[in-house]
Protein backbone atom coordinates (compact mmCIF):
# COMPACT_ATOMS: atom_id res chain seq x y z
CA UNK A 1 0.00 0.00 0.00
CA UNK A 2 1.52 3.38 -0.97
CA UNK A 3 2.18 5.81 1.80
CA UNK A 4 -0.32 8.62 1.10
CA UNK A 5 1.93 11.17 2.72
CA UNK A 6 5.08 10.34 0.77
CA UNK A 7 6.21 12.93 -1.79
CA UNK A 8 6.02 12.01 -5.46
CA UNK A 9 9.69 11.07 -5.68
CA UNK A 10 11.05 10.32 -2.24
CA UNK A 11 14.45 9.15 -3.49
CA UNK A 12 17.13 11.71 -4.18
CA UNK A 13 18.95 9.90 -6.99
CA UNK A 14 21.75 12.47 -7.12
CA UNK A 15 22.48 12.03 -3.45
CA UNK A 16 22.66 8.26 -3.88
CA UNK A 17 25.08 8.65 -6.81
CA UNK A 18 27.27 11.03 -4.84
CA UNK A 19 27.35 8.65 -1.90
CA UNK A 20 28.21 5.75 -4.23
CA UNK A 21 31.10 7.77 -5.67
CA UNK A 22 32.43 8.51 -2.19
CA UNK A 23 32.12 4.82 -1.38
CA UNK A 24 34.30 3.93 -4.40
CA UNK A 25 36.84 6.69 -3.79
CA UNK A 26 37.38 5.83 -0.17
CA UNK A 27 37.10 2.07 -0.39
CA UNK A 28 34.50 2.07 2.39
CA UNK A 29 31.86 -0.67 2.44
CA UNK A 30 28.92 1.33 3.75
CA UNK A 31 27.73 4.94 4.14
CA UNK A 32 24.54 6.03 5.84
CA UNK A 33 23.20 9.61 5.94
CA UNK A 34 20.09 11.05 7.51
CA UNK A 35 18.34 14.31 6.58
CA UNK A 36 15.09 15.00 8.37
CA UNK A 37 12.86 12.01 7.78
CA UNK A 38 14.99 10.67 4.94
CA UNK A 39 17.68 8.11 5.65
CA UNK A 40 19.84 6.64 2.88
CA UNK A 41 22.25 3.76 3.24
CA UNK A 42 24.61 2.87 0.41
CA UNK A 43 26.51 -0.39 0.85
CA UNK A 44 28.88 -2.43 -1.26
CA UNK A 45 28.02 -6.07 -1.78
CA UNK A 46 31.12 -7.95 -0.76
CA UNK A 47 30.01 -11.16 -2.42
CA UNK A 48 28.45 -14.05 -0.59
CA UNK A 49 25.21 -13.72 1.30
CA UNK A 50 25.43 -11.42 4.27
CA UNK A 51 25.13 -13.35 7.46
CA UNK A 52 21.89 -12.78 9.33
CA UNK A 53 21.99 -11.35 12.81
CA UNK A 54 23.12 -13.79 15.45
CA UNK A 55 21.20 -14.21 18.65
CA UNK A 56 21.77 -16.16 21.74
CA UNK A 57 19.69 -19.27 21.88
CA UNK A 58 16.58 -19.00 23.98
CA UNK A 59 16.57 -21.17 27.07
CA UNK A 60 15.38 -24.73 26.60
CA UNK A 61 11.70 -25.40 27.06
CA UNK A 62 10.59 -26.09 30.59
CA UNK A 63 9.78 -29.65 31.44
CA UNK A 64 6.09 -30.24 30.93
CA UNK A 65 4.17 -30.69 34.14
CA UNK A 66 7.15 -32.09 35.97
CA UNK A 67 6.93 -35.06 33.66
CA UNK A 68 9.72 -36.20 31.40
CA UNK A 69 9.40 -34.80 27.88
CA UNK A 70 7.60 -37.14 25.51
CA UNK A 71 10.05 -39.79 24.41
CA UNK A 72 11.44 -38.87 21.02
CA UNK A 73 9.79 -41.05 18.42
CA UNK A 74 8.52 -43.96 20.48
CA UNK A 75 7.74 -46.98 18.38
CA UNK A 76 5.43 -44.73 16.34
CA UNK A 77 6.24 -46.36 13.05
CA UNK A 78 5.35 -49.75 14.42
CA UNK A 79 1.90 -48.88 15.73
CA UNK A 80 -0.68 -46.33 16.69
CA UNK A 81 0.09 -43.80 19.37
CA UNK A 82 -2.55 -43.31 22.06
CA UNK A 83 -2.42 -39.71 23.29
CA UNK A 84 -3.88 -38.23 26.46
CA UNK A 85 -7.11 -36.35 25.74
CA UNK A 86 -6.72 -34.36 28.97
CA UNK A 87 -4.45 -33.07 31.68
CA UNK A 88 -4.29 -35.34 34.72
CA UNK A 89 -2.60 -38.14 36.59
CA UNK A 90 -2.17 -41.60 35.08
CA UNK A 91 -3.14 -44.78 36.92
CA UNK A 92 -2.34 -48.13 35.39
CA UNK A 93 -4.70 -50.13 37.63
CA UNK A 94 -8.23 -49.54 38.91
CA UNK A 95 -7.07 -49.26 42.55
CA UNK A 96 -3.83 -49.63 44.51
CA UNK A 97 -2.78 -53.27 44.62
CA UNK A 98 -5.13 -54.37 41.86
CA UNK A 99 -3.94 -55.90 38.62
CA UNK A 100 -2.83 -53.56 35.83
CA UNK A 101 -5.48 -52.80 33.16
CA UNK A 102 -3.18 -53.96 30.38
CA UNK A 103 0.42 -55.13 30.23
CA UNK A 104 2.97 -54.56 27.50
CA UNK A 105 2.92 -57.46 25.05
CA UNK A 106 -0.72 -58.37 25.67
CA UNK A 107 -3.43 -58.31 23.04
CA UNK A 108 -6.08 -55.65 23.69
CA UNK A 109 -9.44 -55.22 22.04
CA UNK A 110 -10.96 -51.99 20.80
CA UNK A 111 -12.63 -50.05 23.62
CA UNK A 112 -10.76 -51.93 26.34
CA UNK A 113 -9.43 -49.66 29.10
CA UNK A 114 -5.66 -49.25 28.87
CA UNK A 115 -5.27 -46.90 31.82
CA UNK A 116 -7.08 -44.10 33.56
CA UNK A 117 -6.34 -40.39 33.75
CA UNK A 118 -7.58 -38.74 36.91
CA UNK A 119 -8.53 -35.07 36.70
CA UNK A 120 -10.62 -33.10 39.19
CA UNK A 121 -11.32 -36.25 41.24
CA UNK A 122 -12.83 -37.94 38.19
CA UNK A 123 -11.42 -41.18 36.79
CA UNK A 124 -11.40 -41.07 33.00
CA UNK A 125 -10.82 -44.48 31.35
CA UNK A 126 -8.62 -44.27 28.27
CA UNK A 127 -9.76 -47.00 25.86
CA UNK A 128 -7.76 -48.75 23.16
CA UNK A 129 -8.63 -47.02 19.86
CA UNK A 130 -8.45 -50.38 18.07
CA UNK A 131 -7.66 -54.03 18.69
CA UNK A 132 -4.02 -55.08 18.61
CA UNK A 133 -0.96 -55.72 20.71
CA UNK A 134 0.06 -53.27 23.42
CA UNK A 135 3.60 -52.61 22.23
CA UNK A 136 4.57 -49.93 24.72
CA UNK A 137 3.35 -48.06 27.79
CA UNK A 138 5.02 -44.65 27.72
CA UNK A 139 3.85 -43.56 31.18
CA UNK A 140 4.29 -44.88 34.69
CA UNK A 141 1.72 -45.23 37.45
CA UNK A 142 1.03 -41.88 39.15
CA UNK A 143 2.68 -39.82 36.43
CA UNK A 144 1.17 -36.42 35.57
CA UNK A 145 0.39 -35.97 31.88
CA UNK A 146 -0.42 -33.05 29.61
CA UNK A 147 -2.99 -32.76 26.86
CA UNK A 148 -1.67 -34.67 23.84
CA UNK A 149 1.06 -36.52 25.74
CA UNK A 150 1.78 -40.00 24.29
CA UNK A 151 0.52 -42.73 26.62
CA UNK A 152 0.81 -46.03 24.78
CA UNK A 153 1.51 -47.67 21.44
CA UNK A 154 -0.76 -50.30 19.92
CA UNK A 155 0.56 -52.45 17.08
Amino acid at each position, binding site marked *: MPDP*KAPADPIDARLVRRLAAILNDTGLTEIEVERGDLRIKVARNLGGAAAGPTYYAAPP*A*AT*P*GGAPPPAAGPAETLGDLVKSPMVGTVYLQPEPGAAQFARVGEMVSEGQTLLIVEAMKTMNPIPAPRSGRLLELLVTDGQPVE*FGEPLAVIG
Partner: protein
Amino acid sequence: MFEKILIANRGEIALRIHRACKEMGIATVAVHSEADTGAMHVRLADESVCIGPAPASKSYLNIPQIIAACEITGAQAVHPGYGFLSENARFAEIVEAHGYTFIGPKPEHIRMMGDKIAAKVAVKSAGIPVVPGSDGALRSEAEALLAAEVIGFPVLIKAAAGGGGRGMKVALNAEALPEALSTARSEAKAAFGDDSVYLERYLSTPRHIEVQVIADSFGAVCHLGERDCSLQRRHQKVMEEAPSPAIDAAARARIGETVTRAVGALGYLGVGTVEFLYENGEFFFIEMNTRLQVEHPVTEAITGIDLVREQIRIAAGLPLSFTQDQVTFEGHAIECRINAENPRTFAGSPGLVTDFHAPGGLGVRLDSGLYTGYTIPPDYDSLIGKLIVHGRDRTECLARLKRCLGEMVVGGIETTIPLFQDLLAEPDIIEGRYDIHWLERWLKAQG
Protein backbone atom coordinates in the same frame (compact mmCIF):
# COMPACT_ATOMS: atom_id res chain seq x y z
CA MET B 1 2.97 -16.43 50.57
CA PHE B 2 2.33 -18.81 47.68
CA GLU B 3 5.13 -21.11 46.56
CA LYS B 4 3.74 -21.83 43.11
CA ILE B 5 1.31 -19.91 40.89
CA LEU B 6 -0.39 -21.14 37.74
CA ILE B 7 -0.73 -18.47 35.05
CA ALA B 8 -3.94 -19.08 33.10
CA ASN B 9 -3.08 -16.93 30.12
CA ARG B 10 -0.66 -16.54 27.22
CA GLY B 11 1.46 -13.96 25.42
CA GLU B 12 2.89 -10.81 26.93
CA ILE B 13 0.61 -10.81 29.99
CA ALA B 14 1.60 -14.38 30.95
CA LEU B 15 5.21 -13.21 30.76
CA ARG B 16 4.39 -10.09 32.80
CA ILE B 17 2.88 -12.19 35.61
CA HIS B 18 5.78 -14.67 35.46
CA ARG B 19 8.22 -11.80 36.02
CA ALA B 20 6.42 -10.58 39.14
CA CYS B 21 6.32 -14.15 40.50
CA LYS B 22 10.04 -14.72 39.95
CA GLU B 23 10.93 -11.48 41.72
CA MET B 24 8.85 -12.65 44.67
CA GLY B 25 10.56 -16.07 44.72
CA ILE B 26 7.40 -17.85 43.52
CA ALA B 27 7.63 -20.76 41.06
CA THR B 28 5.46 -20.51 37.93
CA VAL B 29 3.37 -22.93 35.93
CA ALA B 30 2.51 -21.95 32.36
CA VAL B 31 -0.47 -23.53 30.68
CA HIS B 32 -0.61 -23.49 26.92
CA SER B 33 -2.33 -24.78 23.83
CA GLU B 34 -0.67 -26.96 21.21
CA ALA B 35 -0.21 -23.79 19.11
CA ASP B 36 1.86 -22.14 21.87
CA THR B 37 4.39 -24.89 22.62
CA GLY B 38 7.23 -22.62 21.54
CA ALA B 39 5.87 -19.43 23.14
CA MET B 40 8.10 -17.42 25.46
CA HIS B 41 5.75 -17.69 28.44
CA VAL B 42 6.08 -21.47 28.17
CA ARG B 43 9.85 -21.40 27.70
CA LEU B 44 10.49 -19.18 30.71
CA ALA B 45 8.06 -20.77 33.17
CA ASP B 46 9.41 -23.24 35.72
CA GLU B 47 6.88 -25.82 34.57
CA SER B 48 4.42 -25.95 31.72
CA VAL B 49 1.34 -27.99 30.94
CA CYS B 50 -0.28 -28.35 27.54
CA ILE B 51 -4.01 -28.06 28.20
CA GLY B 52 -5.55 -28.49 24.77
CA PRO B 53 -5.54 -27.78 21.05
CA ALA B 54 -5.16 -24.32 19.47
CA PRO B 55 -8.75 -22.98 19.75
CA ALA B 56 -9.04 -20.95 22.96
CA SER B 57 -12.40 -22.57 23.76
CA LYS B 58 -10.59 -25.90 24.07
CA SER B 59 -7.48 -24.63 25.87
CA TYR B 60 -7.24 -21.19 27.51
CA LEU B 61 -10.99 -21.21 28.26
CA ASN B 62 -11.08 -24.88 29.26
CA ILE B 63 -11.75 -24.71 33.00
CA PRO B 64 -11.48 -28.47 33.84
CA GLN B 65 -8.09 -28.69 32.12
CA ILE B 66 -6.78 -25.67 34.02
CA ILE B 67 -7.95 -27.09 37.34
CA ALA B 68 -6.36 -30.45 36.42
CA ALA B 69 -3.12 -28.59 35.66
CA CYS B 70 -3.23 -27.11 39.20
CA GLU B 71 -3.70 -30.63 40.57
CA ILE B 72 -0.77 -32.22 38.78
CA THR B 73 1.64 -29.35 39.42
CA GLY B 74 0.63 -28.50 42.98
CA ALA B 75 0.07 -24.80 42.21
CA GLN B 76 -1.65 -22.94 45.05
CA ALA B 77 -3.07 -19.97 43.21
CA VAL B 78 -4.25 -19.02 39.71
CA HIS B 79 -3.60 -15.68 38.04
CA PRO B 80 -6.02 -15.19 35.13
CA GLY B 81 -4.33 -12.17 33.48
CA TYR B 82 -6.73 -10.19 31.27
CA GLY B 83 -9.20 -11.53 28.69
CA PHE B 84 -9.92 -15.28 28.60
CA LEU B 85 -11.23 -16.31 32.07
CA SER B 86 -10.25 -13.15 33.96
CA GLU B 87 -13.81 -11.81 34.23
CA ASN B 88 -15.55 -15.16 34.50
CA ALA B 89 -17.16 -15.27 37.96
CA ARG B 90 -17.87 -18.99 37.62
CA PHE B 91 -14.18 -19.71 36.99
CA ALA B 92 -13.24 -17.73 40.11
CA GLU B 93 -15.75 -19.79 42.10
CA ILE B 94 -14.52 -23.13 40.69
CA VAL B 95 -10.89 -22.25 41.44
CA GLU B 96 -11.82 -21.43 45.06
CA ALA B 97 -14.08 -24.52 45.36
CA HIS B 98 -11.09 -26.71 44.51
CA GLY B 99 -9.05 -25.16 47.29
CA TYR B 100 -6.91 -22.83 45.15
CA THR B 101 -6.72 -19.05 45.41
CA PHE B 102 -8.08 -16.93 42.56
CA ILE B 103 -5.82 -13.89 42.18
CA GLY B 104 -8.53 -11.33 41.54
CA PRO B 105 -11.71 -9.84 42.95
CA LYS B 106 -14.51 -11.73 44.66
CA PRO B 107 -16.84 -13.58 42.25
CA GLU B 108 -19.79 -11.39 43.38
CA HIS B 109 -18.03 -8.24 42.17
CA ILE B 110 -16.96 -9.82 38.89
CA ARG B 111 -20.61 -10.80 38.35
CA MET B 112 -21.98 -7.40 39.39
CA MET B 113 -19.71 -5.44 37.06
CA GLY B 114 -20.27 -7.92 34.22
CA ASP B 115 -23.96 -6.93 34.16
CA LYS B 116 -23.78 -3.42 32.71
CA ILE B 117 -27.16 -2.29 34.08
CA ALA B 118 -26.59 -3.69 37.58
CA ALA B 119 -23.11 -2.12 37.53
CA LYS B 120 -24.50 1.34 36.70
CA VAL B 121 -27.08 1.09 39.48
CA ALA B 122 -24.49 -0.14 41.99
CA VAL B 123 -21.87 2.54 41.28
CA LYS B 124 -24.47 5.31 41.12
CA SER B 125 -25.69 4.43 44.59
CA ALA B 126 -22.04 4.34 45.72
CA GLY B 127 -21.62 7.95 44.55
CA ILE B 128 -20.01 7.60 41.11
CA PRO B 129 -21.38 9.98 38.44
CA VAL B 130 -23.23 8.36 35.52
CA VAL B 131 -24.53 9.86 32.26
CA PRO B 132 -27.70 11.78 33.16
CA GLY B 133 -30.79 10.39 31.47
CA SER B 134 -34.57 10.08 31.64
CA ASP B 135 -35.82 7.51 34.11
CA GLY B 136 -37.47 4.98 31.87
CA ALA B 137 -39.29 5.23 28.55
CA LEU B 138 -40.79 8.51 27.32
CA ARG B 139 -44.54 8.55 26.72
CA SER B 140 -44.95 11.86 24.92
CA GLU B 141 -43.14 14.66 23.13
CA ALA B 142 -43.90 17.01 26.01
CA GLU B 143 -42.40 14.55 28.49
CA ALA B 144 -39.30 14.21 26.28
CA LEU B 145 -38.89 17.99 26.11
CA LEU B 146 -39.17 18.31 29.85
CA ALA B 147 -36.63 15.50 30.41
CA ALA B 148 -34.24 17.00 27.84
CA GLU B 149 -34.31 20.38 29.55
CA VAL B 150 -33.48 18.77 32.90
CA ILE B 151 -30.64 16.70 31.38
CA GLY B 152 -29.36 19.50 29.16
CA PHE B 153 -28.90 19.59 25.37
CA PRO B 154 -27.55 17.97 23.24
CA VAL B 155 -29.41 14.76 24.04
CA LEU B 156 -29.20 11.26 22.62
CA ILE B 157 -32.46 9.38 22.04
CA LYS B 158 -31.92 5.65 22.48
CA ALA B 159 -34.15 2.64 21.84
CA ALA B 160 -34.93 0.89 25.14
CA ALA B 161 -34.60 -2.45 23.38
CA GLY B 162 -31.65 -1.23 21.33
CA GLY B 163 -28.05 -1.92 20.63
CA GLY B 164 -25.52 -1.55 17.85
CA GLY B 165 -26.36 2.10 17.20
CA ARG B 166 -29.81 1.46 15.73
CA GLY B 167 -32.66 3.57 17.03
CA MET B 168 -30.17 6.22 18.18
CA LYS B 169 -30.65 9.89 17.25
CA VAL B 170 -29.04 13.09 18.45
CA ALA B 171 -31.06 16.26 19.10
CA LEU B 172 -28.86 19.34 19.42
CA ASN B 173 -31.66 21.60 20.71
CA ALA B 174 -35.38 21.76 21.56
CA GLU B 175 -36.36 22.57 17.94
CA ALA B 176 -34.70 19.38 16.66
CA LEU B 177 -36.18 17.16 19.37
CA PRO B 178 -39.62 16.26 17.84
CA GLU B 179 -38.15 15.02 14.57
CA ALA B 180 -35.30 13.13 16.25
CA LEU B 181 -37.82 11.55 18.61
CA SER B 182 -40.14 10.31 15.86
CA THR B 183 -37.25 9.03 13.71
CA ALA B 184 -35.77 7.15 16.66
CA ARG B 185 -39.21 5.69 17.46
CA SER B 186 -39.80 4.40 13.94
CA GLU B 187 -36.24 3.01 13.69
CA ALA B 188 -36.67 1.30 17.04
CA LYS B 189 -40.02 -0.13 15.97
CA ALA B 190 -38.53 -1.45 12.72
CA ALA B 191 -35.39 -2.86 14.29
CA PHE B 192 -36.65 -4.23 17.60
CA GLY B 193 -40.47 -4.30 17.28
CA ASP B 194 -40.68 -1.90 20.21
CA ASP B 195 -40.82 1.89 19.87
CA SER B 196 -39.93 2.67 23.51
CA VAL B 197 -37.16 5.25 23.69
CA TYR B 198 -35.34 7.08 26.46
CA LEU B 199 -33.03 10.09 26.67
CA GLU B 200 -29.43 10.51 27.73
CA ARG B 201 -27.05 13.46 27.66
CA TYR B 202 -25.14 13.29 24.38
CA LEU B 203 -21.39 13.59 24.74
CA SER B 204 -20.04 14.79 21.41
CA THR B 205 -16.28 14.90 22.00
CA PRO B 206 -15.57 12.95 25.20
CA ARG B 207 -12.22 11.55 26.27
CA HIS B 208 -11.88 8.08 27.75
CA ILE B 209 -10.33 8.48 31.16
CA GLU B 210 -10.06 5.62 33.62
CA VAL B 211 -9.05 5.49 37.26
CA GLN B 212 -6.91 2.65 38.64
CA VAL B 213 -7.94 1.45 42.09
CA ILE B 214 -6.59 -1.20 44.40
CA ALA B 215 -8.08 -2.59 47.61
CA ASP B 216 -6.79 -5.10 50.16
CA SER B 217 -8.68 -7.45 52.47
CA PHE B 218 -8.20 -5.09 55.44
CA GLY B 219 -10.41 -2.41 53.92
CA ALA B 220 -7.61 -0.17 52.61
CA VAL B 221 -8.41 1.34 49.20
CA CYS B 222 -6.08 3.55 47.12
CA HIS B 223 -6.33 5.11 43.69
CA LEU B 224 -3.29 5.28 41.44
CA GLY B 225 -4.40 8.16 39.26
CA GLU B 226 -5.86 8.04 35.79
CA ARG B 227 -4.97 6.82 32.33
CA ASP B 228 -6.14 8.56 29.18
CA CYS B 229 -7.15 5.93 26.63
CA SER B 230 -9.00 8.17 24.17
CA LEU B 231 -7.08 6.96 21.12
CA GLN B 232 -9.29 4.08 20.05
CA ARG B 233 -10.28 2.25 16.93
CA ARG B 234 -13.50 0.24 16.97
CA HIS B 235 -13.66 0.61 20.75
CA GLN B 236 -10.18 -0.93 21.03
CA LYS B 237 -7.55 1.15 22.79
CA VAL B 238 -4.51 1.83 20.62
CA MET B 239 -2.32 4.14 22.71
CA GLU B 240 -2.64 5.13 26.37
CA GLU B 241 -0.98 7.75 28.51
CA ALA B 242 -0.76 8.88 32.10
CA PRO B 243 -1.33 11.45 33.37
CA SER B 244 -4.10 12.62 31.03
CA PRO B 245 -3.24 15.86 29.20
CA ALA B 246 -6.82 17.00 30.02
CA ILE B 247 -6.77 16.61 33.81
CA ASP B 248 -5.05 18.71 36.45
CA ALA B 249 -3.96 17.65 39.92
CA ALA B 250 -7.12 18.98 41.57
CA ALA B 251 -9.46 17.12 39.18
CA ARG B 252 -7.33 13.98 39.62
CA ALA B 253 -7.60 14.14 43.40
CA ARG B 254 -11.38 14.75 43.22
CA ILE B 255 -12.24 11.85 40.89
CA GLY B 256 -9.69 9.63 42.64
CA GLU B 257 -11.35 10.29 45.98
CA THR B 258 -14.86 9.70 44.57
CA VAL B 259 -13.78 6.36 43.09
CA THR B 260 -11.86 5.30 46.19
CA ARG B 261 -14.84 5.95 48.42
CA ALA B 262 -17.25 4.10 46.10
CA VAL B 263 -14.97 1.09 45.68
CA GLY B 264 -14.54 0.93 49.44
CA ALA B 265 -18.31 1.05 49.92
CA LEU B 266 -18.73 -1.89 47.52
CA GLY B 267 -16.25 -3.97 49.57
CA TYR B 268 -14.16 -4.59 46.46
CA LEU B 269 -10.93 -6.63 46.60
CA GLY B 270 -7.84 -6.43 44.39
CA VAL B 271 -7.14 -4.23 41.36
CA GLY B 272 -9.91 -2.65 39.34
CA THR B 273 -10.41 0.12 36.84
CA VAL B 274 -13.35 2.49 36.73
CA GLU B 275 -13.78 3.81 33.19
CA PHE B 276 -15.30 7.20 32.44
CA LEU B 277 -16.21 9.44 29.56
CA TYR B 278 -14.89 12.91 30.32
CA GLU B 279 -16.26 16.07 28.75
CA ASN B 280 -16.24 19.72 29.86
CA GLY B 281 -14.83 18.90 33.25
CA GLU B 282 -17.42 16.20 34.05
CA PHE B 283 -16.92 12.45 34.47
CA PHE B 284 -19.55 9.89 33.43
CA PHE B 285 -19.22 6.20 34.36
CA ILE B 286 -18.91 3.66 31.50
CA GLU B 287 -17.98 0.44 33.26
CA MET B 288 -15.70 -1.11 35.83
CA ASN B 289 -13.14 -3.71 34.81
CA THR B 290 -12.52 -6.24 37.55
CA ARG B 291 -9.07 -7.31 36.43
CA LEU B 292 -5.58 -6.19 35.55
CA GLN B 293 -5.70 -4.07 32.38
CA VAL B 294 -3.56 -4.22 29.27
CA GLU B 295 -2.42 -0.63 29.87
CA HIS B 296 -1.51 -1.07 33.55
CA PRO B 297 2.22 -0.42 32.87
CA VAL B 298 1.67 3.31 32.26
CA THR B 299 0.41 3.58 35.84
CA GLU B 300 3.35 1.48 37.04
CA ALA B 301 5.72 3.82 35.20
CA ILE B 302 4.51 7.00 36.90
CA THR B 303 3.90 5.52 40.37
CA GLY B 304 6.73 2.97 40.59
CA ILE B 305 4.22 0.45 41.98
CA ASP B 306 4.23 -3.13 40.65
CA LEU B 307 0.50 -3.86 40.27
CA VAL B 308 0.90 -7.61 39.74
CA ARG B 309 3.04 -7.90 42.85
CA GLU B 310 0.35 -6.08 44.82
CA GLN B 311 -2.33 -8.37 43.35
CA ILE B 312 -0.44 -11.45 44.49
CA ARG B 313 0.17 -9.97 47.96
CA ILE B 314 -3.51 -9.09 48.36
CA ALA B 315 -4.59 -12.59 47.26
CA ALA B 316 -2.18 -14.04 49.84
CA GLY B 317 -3.94 -12.01 52.54
CA LEU B 318 -1.24 -9.34 52.95
CA PRO B 319 -1.99 -5.62 53.23
CA LEU B 320 -1.23 -3.05 50.50
CA SER B 321 2.47 -2.18 50.60
CA PHE B 322 1.69 1.57 50.48
CA THR B 323 -0.86 4.13 51.62
CA GLN B 324 -2.59 6.80 49.52
CA ASP B 325 -0.24 9.45 50.95
CA GLN B 326 2.75 7.50 49.67
CA VAL B 327 1.44 7.39 46.08
CA THR B 328 3.19 10.02 43.97
CA PHE B 329 2.98 10.65 40.24
CA GLU B 330 6.39 11.15 38.63
CA GLY B 331 6.72 12.32 35.03
CA HIS B 332 4.77 11.02 32.07
CA ALA B 333 4.27 7.60 30.46
CA ILE B 334 2.84 6.45 27.11
CA GLU B 335 2.07 2.93 25.95
CA CYS B 336 1.79 1.81 22.32
CA ARG B 337 0.04 -1.47 21.62
CA ILE B 338 2.13 -3.16 18.96
CA ASN B 339 -0.13 -5.47 16.96
CA ALA B 340 0.76 -7.95 14.23
CA GLU B 341 -1.39 -6.07 11.73
CA ASN B 342 -1.09 -4.03 8.60
CA PRO B 343 -0.75 -0.45 9.92
CA ARG B 344 -3.39 0.90 7.48
CA THR B 345 -5.91 -1.89 6.84
CA PHE B 346 -5.43 -3.54 10.25
CA ALA B 347 -5.54 -6.95 8.60
CA GLY B 348 -3.88 -9.52 10.85
CA SER B 349 -0.33 -10.57 10.00
CA PRO B 350 0.58 -13.80 11.79
CA GLY B 351 3.65 -15.83 10.83
CA LEU B 352 7.37 -16.21 11.33
CA VAL B 353 9.29 -13.39 13.01
CA THR B 354 12.52 -13.40 11.01
CA ASP B 355 14.24 -10.62 12.96
CA PHE B 356 13.57 -9.01 16.28
CA HIS B 357 15.30 -6.15 18.02
CA ALA B 358 13.91 -4.50 21.14
CA PRO B 359 14.41 -0.80 21.82
CA GLY B 360 16.20 0.05 25.04
CA GLY B 361 17.63 2.81 27.18
CA LEU B 362 16.46 4.91 30.09
CA GLY B 363 12.73 4.83 30.77
CA VAL B 364 11.97 2.16 28.17
CA ARG B 365 9.97 -1.01 28.79
CA LEU B 366 8.90 -3.58 26.23
CA ASP B 367 6.48 -6.25 27.44
CA SER B 368 6.55 -8.87 24.72
CA GLY B 369 7.04 -12.57 24.14
CA LEU B 370 8.63 -12.00 20.72
CA TYR B 371 11.93 -13.56 19.70
CA THR B 372 13.68 -14.20 16.39
CA GLY B 373 12.32 -17.43 14.95
CA TYR B 374 9.02 -17.25 16.86
CA THR B 375 5.94 -18.00 14.81
CA ILE B 376 2.92 -15.89 15.75
CA PRO B 377 -0.04 -18.28 15.68
CA PRO B 378 -3.19 -17.12 13.85
CA ASP B 379 -5.47 -18.40 16.63
CA TYR B 380 -5.34 -15.51 19.11
CA ASP B 381 -5.48 -11.72 19.22
CA SER B 382 -2.87 -9.71 17.41
CA LEU B 383 -1.21 -7.92 20.36
CA ILE B 384 2.46 -8.94 20.20
CA GLY B 385 4.00 -6.34 22.45
CA LYS B 386 3.51 -3.22 24.49
CA LEU B 387 6.07 -0.45 24.31
CA ILE B 388 5.92 1.71 27.42
CA VAL B 389 8.08 4.80 27.63
CA HIS B 390 8.56 7.07 30.61
CA GLY B 391 9.97 10.61 30.67
CA ARG B 392 10.26 13.41 33.21
CA ASP B 393 7.56 15.28 31.28
CA ARG B 394 5.33 14.67 28.28
CA THR B 395 7.73 16.32 25.83
CA GLU B 396 10.63 14.10 26.91
CA CYS B 397 8.33 11.08 26.83
CA LEU B 398 7.20 11.80 23.25
CA ALA B 399 10.80 12.28 22.03
CA ARG B 400 11.86 9.04 23.69
CA LEU B 401 8.89 7.16 22.24
CA LYS B 402 9.73 8.40 18.75
CA ARG B 403 13.33 7.28 19.20
CA CYS B 404 12.22 3.82 20.42
CA LEU B 405 9.82 3.24 17.53
CA GLY B 406 12.70 3.92 15.16
CA GLU B 407 14.91 1.42 16.98
CA MET B 408 12.47 -1.44 17.18
CA VAL B 409 12.71 -4.14 14.51
CA VAL B 410 10.13 -6.86 13.91
CA GLY B 411 10.94 -8.57 10.62
CA GLY B 412 8.88 -11.01 8.60
CA ILE B 413 5.45 -9.75 9.61
CA GLU B 414 3.57 -6.46 9.48
CA THR B 415 3.15 -4.46 12.67
CA THR B 416 1.43 -1.26 13.74
CA ILE B 417 4.79 0.43 14.49
CA PRO B 418 4.47 2.70 11.38
CA LEU B 419 1.02 3.82 12.58
CA PHE B 420 2.52 5.13 15.81
CA GLN B 421 5.34 6.85 13.92
CA ASP B 422 2.74 8.67 11.83
CA LEU B 423 0.64 9.53 14.89
CA LEU B 424 3.66 11.06 16.65
CA ALA B 425 4.03 13.51 13.75
CA GLU B 426 0.49 14.85 14.27
CA PRO B 427 0.22 18.22 16.07
CA ASP B 428 -2.98 17.07 17.85
CA ILE B 429 -1.16 14.08 19.34
CA ILE B 430 1.91 16.12 20.23
CA GLU B 431 -0.30 18.65 22.01
CA GLY B 432 -2.62 16.06 23.57
CA ARG B 433 -5.74 17.39 21.82
CA TYR B 434 -7.77 14.30 21.01
CA ASP B 435 -11.07 12.67 21.96
CA ILE B 436 -12.44 9.15 21.49
CA HIS B 437 -13.38 9.90 17.84
CA TRP B 438 -10.04 11.46 16.86
CA LEU B 439 -8.30 8.29 15.62
CA GLU B 440 -11.19 7.05 13.46
CA ARG B 441 -11.55 10.53 11.94
CA TRP B 442 -7.82 10.69 11.23
CA LEU B 443 -7.73 7.20 9.70
CA LYS B 444 -10.65 8.12 7.44
CA ALA B 445 -8.88 11.30 6.33
CA GLN B 446 -5.75 9.29 5.54
CA GLY B 447 -7.84 7.19 3.12
